């Protein structure tokens, strides 16, 4: 019983360390005063409400959503065929391709942003938004490929072969046999990609310009200027959003199987 207690203590303290700050943020956002304190003196929802009125947050939220959704979709469009090819075929240069696609995760984000700014945006006149879009797509692609590969790995290839034998075209077989069966894997990849893109900071640090800012960067700037609790409130709301998305996914898909 001693070990039970010890076990609980260890887990409890660790969870406190990991989750505690998150809880504090939620509560600090409820401060009634003009100023961030914890414990809050007085409870008020005004900061949570204020978040929705700050114009720059709305714009940057829209941009972040746009990047997350379309970046992930593009990554899936590129990634699903790649995952299919890697798991079903024995393609030449398979290792090289796998390494190339996985590389973005290794490169420090801040360098990515800087490189794209310097060599794509400025000289080739790409808009900052386009560069951001490409960066986010490339960052999500490795996750997309990996998750879908994993899902494909669980799927036997003989079903597809049977479909073709029975007269289905290759593409038909793919659409009717493969896709429906990897649906949850794809959705899992989408959600993982979405959250990764949405919370991405280092890449966006340099790839931001007048009027073009992702939400995390906007929050950072806001934090430097104002110390009022609205930043805490916004952080809490975003955290809820991320968590809710993942929670829903887990409930309906059990997607942790694919990660």
């Amino acid at each position, binding site marked *: 019983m001693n070990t039970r207690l010890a076990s609980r203590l260890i887990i409890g303290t660790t969870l406190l360390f990991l989750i505690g700050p998150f809880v504090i943020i939620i509560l600090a956002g409820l401060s009634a005063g003009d*100023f961030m304190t914890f414990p809050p003196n007085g409870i008020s929802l005004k900061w949570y409400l204020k978040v929705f009125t700050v114009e720059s947050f709305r*714009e940057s939220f*829209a*941009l972040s*959503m*746009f*990047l997350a*959704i*379309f970046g992930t979709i593009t990554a899936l469009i590129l990634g699903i065929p790649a995952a299919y090819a890697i798991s079903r075929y024995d393609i030449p240069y398979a290792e090289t391709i796998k390494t190339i696609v996985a590389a973005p995760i290794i490169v420090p984000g801040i360098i990515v942003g800087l490189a794209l*700014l*310097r060599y794509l945006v*400025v*000289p080739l*006149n790409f*808009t900052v*938004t386009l560069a951001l879009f490409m960066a986010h797509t490339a960052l999500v692609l490795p996750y997309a490929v990996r998750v879908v590969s994993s899902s494909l790995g669980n799927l036997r290839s003989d079903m597809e072969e049977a479909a073709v034998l029975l007269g289905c075209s290759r593409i038909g077989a793919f659409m009717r046999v493969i896709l429906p069966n990897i649906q949850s894997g794809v959705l899992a990849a989408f959600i993982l990609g979405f959250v990764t893109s949405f919370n991405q900071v280092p890449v966006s640090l340099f790839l931001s*310009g*007048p*009027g*073009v800012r992702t939400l995390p960067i906007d929050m950072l*700037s806001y934090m*430097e*200027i*104002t*110390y009022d609790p609205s930043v805490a409130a916004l952080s809490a709301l975003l955290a809820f959003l991320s968590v809710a998305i993942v929670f829903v996914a887990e409930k309906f898909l059990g997607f942790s199987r694919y990660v």
Partner: protein
Amino acid sequence: MKYFLATTAALGLIAGAGHAQDRTLTISVYAFGQDAMAEAVFNPFEEVCGCEVVIETGNSVERMAKIEANAANPVIDMAVMSTQDALSLARQDLLQPLDVAQISSHADLYEAAKDPLGNGMAVGYSYYATSIVYRSDLVTVDSWADLLSDDLAGRVALPNITGTQGPLTLMMLSNALGHEGADYAQTIDAIGESGDDIVTFYNRSSELAQLMLQEEVIAAPVGRFAWSRFSGADLPFAWAEPTEGQTGGMNVMVMTKGNGNEELAYQFMDYWLSVEVQTRIAEAKLDSPANTDVVVSDEIAKSLTYGAELINSLTMLDPAAIIDNREAWVERWNENVVN
């Protein structure tokens, strides 16, 4: 799912494309007080010109570097920054000379604000004094040397050498400690020795305001434009009047070369420098006016750097001297202070 996607697609397109529809003026301004500035200047201007004002914010030196980086394809139409950063851009041929005929209030500006860089490259729009802000309930500050004293050890912040306030602080500290030499070598070393006692080196005035309000520090040199944040706070702050005097500077407006949007940019500069707008800004206790026709009440004047007498009493640092010596200062600072 489809509707959701469609809506966000629409949102994304709007967010991106909306800017392209109206006439747009892209400006680079200080981050501090931008909400209030938006209310006093940027938003009213949008109504006047029927255009959209897109804002880039940050501290002066960062924004200067951005303009340098984008030289081939200027993103910014007009910018406001410190005199020395503007001079740096002028020397790199990144600015265009201003046609003062397009700025109706030009003649009403302080003499020194009319052509601070020479060749009409810039126009001053605001003065500020720099001194030390401190918690009057915890300490008293009468000299710049107090920054390195035991009283403030562990509770003081200094501006980073790369910012605008950094060299000004160096100069005053040098004077106060009786050091000689424009390379401020002794002063930098002195700061280096007290390194542990300095909480941090702030990059933006807004950072500093936070630190003070969080009570991480109780004293720091800062520009008067930040004073409104302290005077209105719950904690008691005071503005030092050190024996060595105050320092300060002038912020200027510049126009980037070849931006293609000169007409709007001039309209905006003209607007910002007009008596009406300068008075509005002054009354909001944001920036002190460079337009001599601006009149404000004594009460408001106390929060600003107002009046020829005060402006003339400030020990300013020659912008050319700053540019010429900056690299050496940063080298030595990196070696002895931040190391």
